[in-house]
């Protein structure tokens, strides 16, 4: 990640250190929370906090590699693509996110998309 300022459309949501390694926290927003994951190698991902299976809160799952295992019935979601790892089928909405100097920024499309909805 670069040292540049995030630019206009990015919203700061917190610090990397506020999320435990291989953990997640949520950003609460109207109409459905976003889960921010701190995966393998401090890679940050933002996904809708709803498992495609039965809506389980993915932020509460165990994070391994760049995947999370849903706490309710153990579906495994690939954080990179948002897709359930085969043979399960389903996909979770992803949002753009970036990490600059230990600060996490979420693209505000994540908020707008919700307003439009």
């Amino acid at each position, binding site marked *: 990640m670069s040292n540049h300022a995030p630019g206009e459309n990015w919203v700061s949501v*917190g610090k990397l250190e506020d999320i435990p390694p291989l953990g997640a926290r949520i950003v609460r927003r*109207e109409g459905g929370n976003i889960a921010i994951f701190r995966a393998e190698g401090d890679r940050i991902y933002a996904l809708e906090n709803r498992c495609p299976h039965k809506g389980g809160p993915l932020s509460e799952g165990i994070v391994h*590699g760049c995947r999370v295992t849903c706490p309710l019935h153990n579906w495994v979601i690939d954080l990179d693509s948002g897709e359930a790892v085969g043979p399960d089928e389903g996909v979770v909405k992803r949002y753009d996110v970036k990490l600059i100097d230990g600060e996490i920024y979420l693209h505000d499309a994540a908020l707008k998309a919700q307003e439009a909805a």
Partner: protein
Amino acid sequence: MTQKLVVVGNGMAGMRTIEELLKITPDLYDITVFGDEPYGNYNRILLSPVLAGEKTIDDIMLNTEEWYAENNITLRKGVKVTEIRRDRRVVIAEDGSETPYDRLLIATGSRPFILPIEGVGLQGVLTFRDIHDVNQMLAAAKTGKKAVVIGGGLLGLEAANGLAKNGMDVTVVHLMDTLMERQLDAAAGAMLKASLEQRDLKFLMEAKTKAIVGRDKVEAVELEDGRKIPADLVVMAVGIKPNIELAQKAGLYCERGIVVDDTMLTYDGRIYAVGECVQHRGVAYGLVAPLFEQAKVCANHLARKATAAYKGSVTSTKLKVTGIDLFSAGDFAGGEGVEEIVLKDPYGGVYKKLCIKDNKIRGAVLYGDTMDGPWYFQLMREGTDISEIRDHLLFGQAHLGDSGHGGQESGVALLSDDAEICGCNGVCKGEIVDAIVEKKLFTLDDVRAHTKASSSCGSCTGLVEQLLATTLGGDYSETPKEKPICACTDLSHDAVREVINTQEIKTIPELMAFLEWKTPNGCATCRPALNYYLLCRWPEDYEDDSQSRFINERAHGNIQKDGTYSVVPRMWGGVTTPDELRAIADVAEKYKVREVKVTGGQRIDLFGVEKEDLPEIWRDLSKAGFVSGHAYGKALRTVKTCVGSQWCRFGTQDSTGLGIKLEQMTWGSWMPHKFKMAVSGCPRNCAEATIKDFGVVCVESGYELHIGGNGGIKVRVTDLLTKVETEEEVLEYTAAFIQLYREEAHYLERTAPWVERVGLAYVKKKILDDPENRKALRDRFLKSQRRAQIDPWKENATSPQRQAQFKPLRDLTRQQDLEGANA
């Protein structure tokens, strides 16, 4: 540069190896496959149902040509390899092409054995090995009437059955006096013969073929005794021999088959071999289950992991003739010290024989009712001591009382397609069978992944395994005995614990590095196990890794289907006071708890609490004197008690008081799985102590200690450990038992299956016979309790850092947060 892997033989073993290899490392090799049959890869064992008209060729294809293309594999179908030049590392094919290799895999299978008699070259004399043979048989059945099958083994009988179904008049000529004599004893062989005769097959037993006669087309089979049996078609099914010509010609060391070591390597360090063409520790196999095990090991070495070893297989056989159930495994010939348990019901068409030596099953022959075949086979391979179940062994596993699929004991094969097999995930028989057939599933894990059946509580595992076995026949590869913890490693639970016990390793990353874990940080199966094992080994200084715990243990509550949590405060021995009840009522009102319920464990559950509110609730409960009830943990749950001598007219001892003492000693302790106790004041046993992990039944003269009970998925009544006289002893034995379980059971193994696995005698040896060891176990337990008995609720409610983890990182629904965000 990518290395070149060349495979000779496009059959079941070769392609299974490639599939396993692609799973581990898809890009390591540039792969070329030669197969002299003009097809993709198909399931050879299902040729029998194809011949019988129950399946089509399309049904039995395993890997289509598209599959090869998708995986960048060059398939040279219909091309036979004629020579291997080891000096130049190339294979030369029939068409003159030369293909270089860095690694070579030989999987040429076997050839039908042809009797050295006159007339075998005549038109109309066939073998039964591949699609070509089946097509020829089907064509011959259209024109000819009479068929003779030479050989009354598995292949011969399946061929005979298929030809009869195609309208032919079939005679089986067999050299021995029993059909399938390698798999069946005389009694079962006779029953088999009788039921095949009912299907109009004819048999000539103890008959030796002398020649096949005819001008250019077969006309008859001539026996040694002079008899001539007219035939338009002769199928020779007298055995197979490993196909080693190519290897021999290349100068590779061969005996009966190509000789390989435990890594499936031949005498040439670049050449591997798998399947029916190999000989491993003196054995050449002719069934797929062992070949699949070989394939897995071979792939592991081709992928340069070098962690797997093939140690040989125990095999079982099923005959794939629809309507005839036959199962055979192991050694059933009798001999010194071998006892036989036999059930014989000729009228009902059922025969079962188990051969037992040293309290272990050595062999099994089942005819007519094979439902328990997989179970006996498992007991046999795992060397399970059957002395305790011996009296009802022959009646089968259905006796063992699983909950959730009652009334289905009548044999899974008889169930209708809409019968529910997995009660947890609502999966029916039809769905499972379809998935096995359409998605070409071979193992329990495959079925779990694709259908979710048996992936939750596991009580239907036996039924799913039976479905696999009945759907696939002998093609089903059973789960190996020493299972790896998960796909992240090849090591079993025991192997990992062994390392933890002997090495000074105190973190999960270090442990994974040391054991060469295949994934960077494991998965949701192995991490919680490793976390527990390390915690158990280093009770004083292991730093618990909460990210390796399931959410319930991380949030100290049970997650609900809607993402809220439940809160269960500890209620010592089920005893409470008006003050406590008032405090709970206050908390319930203050936090608008959605439901208050009395649990099956004698305490109160508060449902529907938001994660964010948990620390607050805990703080209030803490103030009122409550600690966590660990209703969410692989930990001590409840100690259920009855009123006992304090009030009850039958009570012999103070069961309530003792239960409270036990709970105070053991609460907070982390275990391989949850752990429940109970104390009953007399043998009326109102606290249900005999279905608990540890139960105490008070009697006039002391206390009976019961272990290994379970009231859940599979009800198991406890075993009596011993009787003691004082409360002090009860506490000592309890602590020792728990510690033994903590130190030796596998993660997620409750005491009931653990006691069954290690045996009651073992537990007695460790705890009763050796007082020194008992005291040492007790001391280790108490030592680990010092750190474990810090109430996690209080801790979380008072540490700001921990509290933060229960809150959102940011709340954009709050106006000030949103403004701040946009600024």
